[in-house]
């Protein structure tokens, strides 16, 4: 397997994860979608120095990992490419914001360091939440529930097709990198001089295939909307879960648990 095929394999593993069974998997997709959106909105809304208050938000993903049986390792493995990018966002803060902010055992910690850590934690939390949503729900049910929330059909279809076409592009890329390496043995990566034509070819080939795929959809009676598998009705427990999550998130946003605990201990 070359790198690209591995990527493709990973994509299909997401479908496998989503096909498993656990109390989290059994929740209604809309409940999971809404709670994830609420979670991300709350996480993002924390101030840039509120590291201590943000930390308890970690509880939710940890709990979900436990209950769903999705392993934390798989999560970090899948996110290994995006995670560093997201984490790198706050990297320069310490250089701009040097005023000491708090003292930990006599060592001054600058505002920049605190805001960097806060940003990193925010990125990590949002990624984990999105990953958990995908790993326990599956793209088709997600799209179905987006439709039920009256997100325009065009947008949802676009999302679904993008997800599918990523597979198509990766496949073409796999074939082309293999062909390249067979004729450039011992070379690491693809030489800069070939990038232009390589990308051009990739685009043309993906477009050709996308067009054939689209043709094959049309031939099977496709009219701009998918018939998603029926989702069971939204039941009381789903509502309780969604509301419960939202309430807890709001509570954590209002009340700084870390500080509360800290003051209890000090006293």
């Amino acid at each position, binding site marked *: 397997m070359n790198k690209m095929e591995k990527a493709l394999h990973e994509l299909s593993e997401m479908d496998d994860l989503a096909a498993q069974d656990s109390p989290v998997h059994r929740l209604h997709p809309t409940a999971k979608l809404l709670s994830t959106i609420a979670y991300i909105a709350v996480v993002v809304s924390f101030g840039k120095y509120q590291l201590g208050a943000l930390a308890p938000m970690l509880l939710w993903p940890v709990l979900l990992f436990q209950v769903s049986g999705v392993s934390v390792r798989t999560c970090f493995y899948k996110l290994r490419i995006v995670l560093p990018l997201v984490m790198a966002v706050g990297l320069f803060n310490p250089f701009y914001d040097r005023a000491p902010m708090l003292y930990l055992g006599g060592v001054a910690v600058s505002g920049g360091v605190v805001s960097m850590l806060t940003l990193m934690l925010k990125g990590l939390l949002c990624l984990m939440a999105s990953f958990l949503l995908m790993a326990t729900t599956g793209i088709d049910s997600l799209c179905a529930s987006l439709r039920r929330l009256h997100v325009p059909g065009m947008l949802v279809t676009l999302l679904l097709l993008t997800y599918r076409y990523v597979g198509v592009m990766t*496949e073409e890329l796999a074939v082309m990198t293999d062909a390249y390496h067979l004729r450039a043995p011992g070379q690491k990566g693809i030489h800069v001089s070939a990038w232009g034509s390589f990308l051009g070819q990739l685009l043309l080939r993906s477009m050709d295939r996308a067009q054939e*795929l689209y043709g094959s959809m049309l*031939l*099977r*009676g496709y009219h701009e909307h998918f*018939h998603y598998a029926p989702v069971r009705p939204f039941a009381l427990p789903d509502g309780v879960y969604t509301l419960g999550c939202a309430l807890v998130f709001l509570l954590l946003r209002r009340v700084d648990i870390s500080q509360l605990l800290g003051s209890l201990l000090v006293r």
Partner: protein
Amino acid sequence: MIEFQHVSFAYEKGRSVIEDLSFRIGDGESVGLIGANGAGKSTVMKLMLGLLAGEGKILVDGSELNRANLSQIRRKLGFVLQNSDNQMFMPTVYEDMMFGPLNYMLSREEAERRVDAVLERLGLQALKHRHNHRISGGEKRMAAIATVLAMEPETILMDEPTSALDPYNRRIVINTIRELGQTKLISSHDLDMILDTCDRVILLSEGRIAADGPAERVLRDRALLEAHHLELPLRLA
């Protein structure tokens, strides 16, 4: 019934790929569309399905193919693409097979019953919940045929159904084709397969018809076949 009346087509202006093509395929016929690579076989099929638009008239059951009746006509024709990877776009074989029937407003139960019936008929029950990109080339070709059969088309078009298959899988596909009751149009340069599955043969060469007649006669004509870069079927050689 499918009829081409003086159909021409060019991908690029001035470079005709199909030139003044006329033929007629009656109900229940099984026709082999043969020709060397680039002869225009795939193009003929795409024209028939309205995926490409050329000059001249194409009639299906007496009505001319146009924008208004495109979806009705497509419903009558089932197309098995040359590259099964481009045919299957849902995650699993089952979902792919459901796609067509659901678009034609069948209820989920009805659609699933059809899917199961087709899978059983082709002996493919084991493939039902497999992931499309984890099955072998031979299984994928059979699954692609199954997705088309699940739509119960009146006519089946197959573009090089045995290309890239090993002898065992090729044989399975041939036996399946032989058992289909529908009108069939099968493109290929695998002339042994055509001999096994078709009664009539249209020989296409550079976008024109070079011969049209009973399979037994056309496929025996060594001089004709060789003049168009084909060879006698092994069985007749």
